[in-house]
Structures are given as structure tokens and as C-alpha cells.
């Protein structure tokens, strides 16, 4: 596939390889990922990856649930998340905004490409927060254009999700360990 004509989306029919690695305590963030798993996208596609982010250095500890769900309309993955305290009390949007890492998250939130809306989770049918997908294909295209070697050899689907997550994850303070990107 010619990278220059790629529209930045992930069409169904491709295969996605999720390479998981249990990440040990780095900077107090723990990401538990699924183990090596092959998921093929079929027509009624949805890809759900559940990761829980726990920040251990606050007195009232907020828990975040993150789901990655494929959007058939926008043909990109979409990040859904919700936050709640250990007693179950949900965090409103204002509380979440205060909780996020100030620097990069604020920039992303202010950018025209990423903004947060509250919507019904497509499968759980409850209100969750969602990172609006309409800009995703644009910045995914940019992301892959920058790397000249990628432009020559074509994009590999395996990297799509990781690259995508490396950008959106910052909005919720999720850091992807470099080791994950070096997996063969």
C-alpha cells in the first residue's frame, strides 16, 4: 500500500497483532496488556482492549478504565474511558481534567484534533467519555509520513495501534514503554 495515498484509517480486513508485555513498575504507571493475540477485523468489527491505569501517589486514588473500540463510521480506533474513585464514585469531566498530566494533555485537549465528548458506550450502554475520532485519520497520516523508511516500505498494521495509542494515551496520561515498539 502506498503510504502517500493512505487516508490514515484502518479498514476492516486487515489483521491486527497486539503484542503484549507485562510492564513492570516504571514511573508508577502500570499497563497490563493482553498477551500475544491475533485479532482479525471482520465486518461487524470491534476491538476492545481493556487497560487499567492506577496512579498510586494520590490520596484519593482515581481509577481509569480505557477501552479501545473500532468505529465503523470513522474507520479508526476510538478511545473510551471513564474514571472513578476507589469507592465507586465517578469522576466528572472537570475532575478528570485536573487529574490529567498538565503539559501534553492540555495541549492535546486544546488542539482541534482531539476533544472529549460524553457518549454512550456502544456495548456497555452506559455514559463514558470518548476521544472524538474525527481528526484521527488526519494525524495518523502525519505520523506515518514523517518516517521516511516507513514511507518507502509501507505501513504495517501492527504499528498502527501502538502509534495511535502513543498519541491518544497522552491525553489520559498513559505512556507506552519503548520496548513495546521494538518487538519484532
Amino acid at each position, binding site marked *: 500500500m502506498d503510504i502517500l495515498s493512505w487516508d490514515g484509517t484502518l479498514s476492516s480486513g486487515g489483521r491486527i497483532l497486539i503484542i503484549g508485555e507485562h510492564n513492570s513498575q516504571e514511573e508508577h504507571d502500570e499497563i497490563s496488556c493482553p498477551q500475544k493475540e491475533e485479532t482479525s477485523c471482520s465486518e461487524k468489527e470491534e476491538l476492545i482492549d481493556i487497560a487499567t491505569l492506577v496512579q498510586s501517589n494520590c490520596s484519593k486514588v482515581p481509577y481509569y478504565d480505557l477501552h479501545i473500540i473500532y468505529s*465503523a*463510521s470513522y474507520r479508526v480506533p476510538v478511545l473510551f474511558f471513564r474514571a472513578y474513585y476507589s469507592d465507586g464514585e465517578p469522576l466528572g469531566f472537570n475532575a478528570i481534567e485536573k487529574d490529567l498530566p498538565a503539559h501534553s494533555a492540555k495541549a492535546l485537549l486544546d488542539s482541534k484534533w482531539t476533544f472529549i465528548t460524553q457518549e454512550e458506550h456502544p456495548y456497555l450502554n*452506559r455514559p463514558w467519555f470518548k476521544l472524538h475520532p*474525527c481528526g484521527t485519520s488526519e494525524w495518523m497520516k502525519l505520523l506515518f509520513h514523517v518516517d521516511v523508511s516507513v514511507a518507502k516500505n509501507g505501513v504495517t498494521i501492527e504499528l498502527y495501534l501502538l502509534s495511535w495509542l502513543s498519541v491518544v494515551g497522552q491525553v489520559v496520561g498513559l505512556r507506552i514503554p519503548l520496548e513495546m515498539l521494538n518487538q519484532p
Partner: protein
Amino acid sequence: MMEARKYVWEGAIPLQIHLHESEVTTLPPPLPALILAPRIGYLPLLVPHIKPHFSSTLPPGIDTVWFDYKGLPLKWYIPTGILFDLLCAEPERPWNLTVHFRGYPGNILIPCEGEDSVKWSFINSLKEAAYIINGNCKSVMNMSQPDQVELWRSVINAGNLEAYIRVSSKLKLGTVGDEYAADLYSSSLNSRQSIGDTDSTGQVKTGKCFTLLDAVKSLLPEYFPYKSLNNEESSREEDKDEEKVPSENLSEHVESCYSSDDAEVKLVRIQGIEPKLEIPFSWVVNNLVNPEHFLHLCVCLKLPQVKIPSDT
């Protein structure tokens, strides 16, 4: 063609709205409010008309309005007509709803802050439609402020179709022409590409027209277990000369999620009409589409009878 569309646009549902008993603080309790709700409108937009009816009896506090039908909290971002078609298999006239001004079920319903929330949800749906049709949301995002206001006004003012068409035509979301081969965008069951009717170079193929039944079958194949012999098997168009025209968007609301072993489609309701399934799908789309450019199909299923084993 405008005639049919105008007729649909101006459709309304008579509602009888009861205040929830927990919020009645006066005797005798207030009578229910009677109001005609536009099909293409949304329930929260009716609140300014309903509230005066009940305001003298409400308990003190801040209003957080929500509606329920027989105890089911209603999703406010779904157009009224669709809620009615979905939830009332046997149409109830007037439709009896309960309104609440307190105790918003925030764990079930996403928050609604009045008209702004509804408008935002509407624009978002329109963006999604634009994205599916054009591959980007630019036409919607680049709408001028006056255009946006006029578009929204045309929707909520009980259907000012002329104004709507004037503004929405700038969005280049197109109309659908007749499809003479089943050209389905196989990567997504929810979108479809069709040949534009502006094309005069004989792109019309011989064969059967793409009907509403064809569309329902392609969206819900599990309820049509026996493959038919006709145009469903047609090959996908790969002809590069073909103009790729906007696809229309379908949103199907299925009333139940039972396994499809013996379930069959009992009826298909669109804008309160049960169209004959043989009619051209292009007509359905061009006339029955909602203002946010989605076509909502309400499908009622007939379920198999469950045999209850008897004790021996």
C-alpha cells in the same frame, strides 16, 4: 418529490406527558400536558413548553429533565419519531410519557443541558454522516456561524424544509440514485455507495432495482437465512470511471437481540410508515432521511415460540 419529503418533515406525535408522582407536591395533582411533538425533533426541546404546565407543583431544586416510557429512561439524543416507532409496536395515541425534573439517572443517561446538548449531538451526527459520505467532516466543520444557526433553526422550528435544504445543500451530502446492481461497500454494513442520478451516460444496468428489502437483507442477513437467487449476488463495481457519489447512512435499531435461529423480520417502520419492501431504496433514502442525514430503520422481529419443557 418535495411533496413527500415535506409531508414527512412535518410529521408529529401527539404526546400526553405526566409528571412523575414523586414530584407532585400539590393537590389535586396536575393534569398531564398535551403536546404535539415533531417527529424529527427531540424531547428536551419540548421542555420549555411543558415546564409552565408543571412549575407550580414541582419541589424546590434545580431542574434536570428526563423522560421515561413505562419506566424506561428515554435517550434524549434520539429523534422523537424514532423513539415512538421503536417503543410502540402498536402505536399509542396519544403516546403516554412521564417527565421528571429531578433525579437524573446519570449512570444510565448521558447528561443533557437543554438545547445546546441536543444541537451538539445533532451536529456530531451530521459530521459522522459527512465523514462516511465524503471521507472527512470538512463541509460540516467549515459551516459559517449563520448557516449553522439557520440549519438548526430549520430543524427545531417544526420543520422548515425550504430553509433546511437551502443550507444543507452546501454540505454536499448528495442524493441517492437508483442502484441497478447490488453494489455494497463490503467493509461496512452500515454504509453504501451508489451511482449518482446526475450521470447520463447509461450507467444504468439492466436488472432489478435495489429495493428496501435488499437493503434490509444486507444489514440483517441473519434474519434471511435462505439466500435469494437474484441480484444480491451481483459483483461489486470496480469500474474506475464511475462517479463515487455519496453513500447514505443507515442506522438500524433492532427491537430485540434474540438469537436469529427462527426469528424473522415482521415489519420495517421508517418515519412511522411501513413502506412496501419492494420500493426502490433510493426513494426511501431521499424522502425519509432525517435532518442529520441518517436513515433510521426500525425493525420489528417476530420471535419463535419458546417451548417450556414440562416436568415428568
